[in-house]
């Protein structure tokens, strides 16, 4: 294939990923899914809620910005001169949206038959900021309601309080949208500073998923990016991290929200893992979740039968290069009992022999799940974005599954230290 396009095939999932880095540093990934009707285009920056301490590219000075700027920027980029981009997409019959997480902000559209127009509009949207005093003020009202909505959401509260209990300095403890108070400090100048620093082609990526023509797509991207090279300095973005201590901040946070069914979340702070190791741990955690906490586990059966557990007990790993943790969460009428049982159980399984049959059966389940997930375009782009942000090998998740051994499960369980665990309860 011309243009120095790198091809990564996966025969199992019946898809291919094409990768090309443009001259200005923009990374482009195209995942071809034959036979699918829908096409998704995503344009993202490696910038999220945790990047609030960095060097302002326009002045070269290190600055700190109020909480919630990345998310505010996400909202405001949809504002174009005289129009709202969501509306412009919608008028073409294209659906679009965006999300901000800890370490990324991604804008996307979904279409059936207007891929070219959608892609052109997406590039224009991200590349043409239009911030005014007035439109910034208007957005404070809308985001204020978004924050209030999350404040009333028990899931959100129990999750963030777990992070706040675990982390001492790391900005992961901050609400992604900020607070009503912090967003009142955001103005047009701050938005431009952050935009100019982070929305720079060499800090960004485009991901396409669907049944598209690869070379044609790269041509459209190339042509359109050139139209808007207003901000493109080749300097690498300088973001400052924090030196997060290994210990936790506080053991327990409880919040009263007048719930009928309380929610409990237990966090174990872990050492961050790098690149492919992180993917491996994520899959090990997933296997542990299935073996020890799913409905096929003895533990769930006991907790359910005595009325302590209800729908599910979730056990999942979350992490990037500078934070990592496990969160175990569930709802229960008797949160104190289930909390006590989970802690005892974790200590017990750390020293117990592992049931080989259960382990092998769980691996079979994972093979089937990967197959079903590949029918959904979302699993393809998640894999790609994950590899962009964490520099792991694409499809390492599929490859590593068959290599996971019982010893890996044992080693992983030992990393769950009682002294680094926290409890968050919302009732």
């Amino acid at each position, binding site marked *: 294939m011309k243009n120095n396009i790198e091809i990564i095939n996966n025969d199992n999932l019946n898809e291919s990923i094409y990768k090309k880095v443009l001259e200005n540093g923009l990374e482009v990934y195209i995942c071809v899914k034959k036979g699918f009707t*829908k096409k998704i285009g995503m344009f993202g920056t490696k910038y999220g809620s945790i990047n609030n301490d960095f060097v302002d590219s326009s002045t070269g000075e290190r600055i700190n910005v109020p909480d919630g700027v990345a998310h505010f920027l996400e909202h405001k980029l949809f504002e174009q001169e005289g129009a709202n981009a969501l509306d412009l997409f919608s008028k073409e019959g294209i659906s679009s949206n965006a999300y901000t997480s800890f370490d990324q902000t991604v804008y996307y559209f979904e279409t059936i038959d207007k891929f070219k127009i959608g892609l052109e509009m997406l590039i224009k949207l991200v590349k043409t900021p239009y911030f005014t005093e007035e439109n910034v003020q208007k957005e404070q009202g*809308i985001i204020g*309601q978004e924050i209030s909505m999350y404040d*009333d959401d028990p899931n959100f509260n129990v999750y963030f309080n777990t992070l706040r209990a675990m982390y001492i300095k790391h900005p992961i403890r901050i609400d992604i949208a900020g607070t009503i108070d912090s967003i009142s400090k955001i103005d047009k100048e701050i938005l431009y500073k952050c935009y100019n620093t982070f929305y720079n082609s060499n800090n960004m990526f485009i991901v396409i998923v669907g049944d598209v023509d690869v070379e044609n797509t790269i041509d459209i991207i190339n042509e359109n990016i050139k139209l808007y090279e207003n901000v493109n300095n080749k300097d690498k973005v300088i973001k400052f991290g924090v030196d997060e201590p290994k210990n936790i901040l506080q053991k327990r946070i409880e919040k009263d*929200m007048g719930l*009928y069914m309380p929610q409990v979340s237990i966090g174990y702070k872990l050492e961050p893992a790098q690149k492919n190791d992180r993917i491996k741990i994520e899959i090990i955690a997933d296997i542990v979740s299935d073996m020890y906490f799913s409905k096929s*586990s003895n533990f769930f059966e006991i907790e359910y039968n005595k009325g302590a557990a209800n729908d599910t007990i979730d056990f999942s790993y979350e992490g990037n290069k500078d934070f990592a943790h496990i969160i175990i969460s569930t709802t229960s009428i008797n949160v104190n009992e289930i909390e006590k049982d989970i802690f005892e159980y974790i200590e017990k399984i750390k020293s117990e022999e592992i049931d080989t049959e259960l382990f092998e059966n769980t691996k079979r389940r994972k093979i*089937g799940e990967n*197959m079903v997930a590949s029918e959904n375009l979302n699993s393809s782009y998640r894999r790609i974005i994950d590899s962009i942000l964490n520099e792991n090998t694409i499809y390492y998740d599929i490859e590593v599954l068959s290599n996971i051994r019982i010893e890996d499960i044992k080693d992983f369980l030992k990393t769950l230290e009682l002294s680094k665990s926290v409890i968050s309860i919302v009732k």
Partner: protein
Amino acid sequence: MEKIYKVNDSKFKSIYLSYNFTFETNKEDIPKNVITSLILSKGSKKYKTSKEIEKYLSSLYGTNFDINMEKIGDLYNIEFRLECVNKKFLPNNEDVFKNAINFLSEIIYNPKIENNEFDKIIFEREKSFIIDKINKKKDEKLRYAVLKTEEILCEKEPFGIYIYGDIKDAENVKISDIYDAYQNIINNSNISIIVSGNLSGYEDIDQYLKEIFINRFNNDNEIDKTLINKSVKRKFCVEDVKEIKEKIQTNQAVITIGLRVEDLEQNDFYALNVYNSILGGTPSSKLFQNVREKESLAYTTKSRYYRFKGIFIIYAGIEESNYERAKKVILDQISDMENGNISELELNSSKQSLVNDLLEWNDSKISLAKLAYTNAINNEKITIDELITNMKAVEIEDVVRVAKKVKLQLIYMLGGEDNEK
């Protein structure tokens, strides 16, 4: 009447099977039926416990099994669902689908019953599970506001009852009710089986299903189709608009508006969908543009059309002090619809968005199965292409015609007491 419906597409790797029991119901029966189906899903004579079930499914390469309850207008549907990988894609071409079908037959038709009674311990546990489910519906405010609106709007109809039933009725369910409910579900429902996904190697699966479920679905239970949609013909619309405020401790208040279509006709379906899309279905919609973008009153604002019931519910998360303003802005949008204040651009982009949603169904074996189910209960054979053609044919005057039949019934507000803090 046909009982088995197949949708085959080679782009998938897996197969989805949905086994539906659709029947008429009433307030007292809903929790009985729900608890009965939960008990079935938790164990049979062969797979004694939930854990045994899950272990067996893991060995079938992670075959998924669950049950789902849904109100189809005033009818009730209990769905047993399976999802598994086609043998073509598995090591040694292991045929997990046929095993999964046998498993399902075991779950539905061979439950743990002794002397006409289900297991008492399992019954008690599932009953308390459902009581908790009903009690916790208040925990999610936005969803609760919408549920409350459905309930008030359809006060005297089965649709107005919460999907798991009313708390008092759930508390009153006795173990002896379960055996009767079970017999009623399996013998007096309309049964439809939908299989969708990659059916390569399973072209004759209907034969196999007939062998496994022989005599199980050769009953002739037809459902009363007047209970889907057409019930609204019976002039349920009220003249006086109700305005109700419910106090609850929250940061954000939720305003909802309930509307009902008078004299609903089968072929209003397309125009009503376009109506919903223009009013509050997309970011170009009147609600999004006015309530959110212009007035900055809300982050979430949408309208939802309940096709099997002929009602609309509008909702928005607002600050309590903005209630009057939000109410006025929303009501203005409804009037604009009725007065034909709709542009060609609004019409076309809404139609386009609906058409895209329909086209997207092709990518999901579950959406394709849902279409097959809807066809089954409506006794129709509408294809996605036909749906699209009809949707595209809707003009502004069609939207205005149905808009005049959309009657304001209820204005409701939940919460907002924490605001002063």
